[in-house]
């Protein structure tokens, strides 16, 4: 029995590794896209800061600048995951790739997990570009007060967004690409997900404190800046983050399973 479990685990891990390799290969198969991101990231940052100037914000403190950096990074993460990864899953469904994956005996969640983990490479590239842009634009070095916790939080954010995006895309598939769902979820998720720093005001701090989806992103900010945004001890935040990720993983598994069953019985796996 132990041997069988080990074999199954090895098979699953090797499948995930294969998907990871494929994911990385795909991500960097379009160098133009990567270059475009490197060029456009500082431009968007500049636009953002110029607009604040338009509202009459003349001076920003060091802390404010650092917070903006992390808001920008969190925004990039949400865009990459919801729009990039989430819509990528839908495109695979529409192109018939998911049918072939299933027919090959692989579980869809394994497929999504390996592919999603490959996005870590992209996230790190995003971080490097945004940090470099910030440093150049504002002559401000980026802070990483607790690098180990920061690295851990990146992994937690990745897992959280991976499973959230899988659930999101399964919902969209089930609801036949209903634009109401996509538009609402794309705005609500980042808001509940810790995009806005609690330093902004008390209501935001309240959302970040009580929304379990916010913990990994908030932890990332806290580890970089050396602050405690939501007044919960960091080890507890870490624990809550792990718990929510496990819950999201189970929910993702359930959603994928139910959606697959439903689509297979309605005959719409490749076209919806």
């Amino acid at each position: 029995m132990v041997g069988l479990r080990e074999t199954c685990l090895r098979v699953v891990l090797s499948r995930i590794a294969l998907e990871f390799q494929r994911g990385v290969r795909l991500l960097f198969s379009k160098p133009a896209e990567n270059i475009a991101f490197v060029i456009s990231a500082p431009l968007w940052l500049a636009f953002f800061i110029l607009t604040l100037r338009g509202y009459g914000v003349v001076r920003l403190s060091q802390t404010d600048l650092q917070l903006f950096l992390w808001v920008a990074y969190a925004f990039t993460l949400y865009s990459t995951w919801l729009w990039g990864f989430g819509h990528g899953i839908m495109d695979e469904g529409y192109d018939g790739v998911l049918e072939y994956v299933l027919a090959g005996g692989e579980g869809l969640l394994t497929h999504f997990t390996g592919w999603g983990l490959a996005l870590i490479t992209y996230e790190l590239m995003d971080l490097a570009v945004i940090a470099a842009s910030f440093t150049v634009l504002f002559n401000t070095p980026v802070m990483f007060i607790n690098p180990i916790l920061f690295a851990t939080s990146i992994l937690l954010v990745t897992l959280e967004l991976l499973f959230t995006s899988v659930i999101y895309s399964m919902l969209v598939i089930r609801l036949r690409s209903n634009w109401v769902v996509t538009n609402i979820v794309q705005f609500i998720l980042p808001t509940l997900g810790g995009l806005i720093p609690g330093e902004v005001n008390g209501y935001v701090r309240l959302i970040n404190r009580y929304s379990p989806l916010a913990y990994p992103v908030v932890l990332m900010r806290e580890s970089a800046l050396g602050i405690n945004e939501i007044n919960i001890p960091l080890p507890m935040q870490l624990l809550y983050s792990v718990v929510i990720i496990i819950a999201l993983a189970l929910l993702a598994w359930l959603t994928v399973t139910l959606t697959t069953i439903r689509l297979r019985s309605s005959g719409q796996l490749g076209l919806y």
Partner: protein
Amino acid sequence: MRLRDWLSLFWAIMLNELRIIAREPGGLVILLLMPYLVAGGMAFMASFFTRVSGIDFIREFIGFEVVMVSMIMVQTGARFISEERSGGRLEHLIATPVSMYIILFATSIVMVIVNISAYLVASLPVIYGVFGVIGLLRLIPTLVIMFIGLMPLYGIGLALAGVVVRLRDVDALMNVVTALLSVLSGATYPIYILPKWVDAVVVALPMYQMYQTALGIVMGSGVTGLIYGLAASTVAYLALGVFTYGRVERDMLKGGVK
């Protein structure tokens, strides 16, 4: 063909495009909500550093509207050929007796009308809230300004279409173009903070001219001299777009639609 036949054909193309747009209501909703989300979000953030008045919000709201609809027009022009090509429709459109210029022009008019309508609907509550009924009356001439101002942006898009068609990765190019044009819009910040040479580029682009003219009308300070610049931009950028598209079509007929 008689004039009546031409108008009927033009109308048929516009109607077709309207139908396609109407079947994606999600996009229309985003068009209405986006300025509120972006301008509102930025106002929210700015409020922690400085006091944001209703006038400040209107100024930025109109600025974001201008940026948003401008980007849509540029993207529409730039992506038209590549989207029709990937949908397999481009060659069938070229193979009809109707000139592609007519199809492009009719399509652009529809996009302009849709964008202006979205601008109108989105702006109504905000303008009324700050200026009352007089604000709503002032909104009407700004629609004409937007109509004139959005056409050259389509021309800029068409001018980019040649590059877009050669690249297989359209999204990558358009991401950079959108970011660059947003920064160069001059619609959400005072342009005097920019270096002089960047300033000159911003003033030469139709977004700044459209924004300043529309803002002047809404604020009640009247039409500025920039309106002449806007008219000149319309002619210049549309001519550029037409000329560039002509070359693109000639290249496609010589080298094939790939």
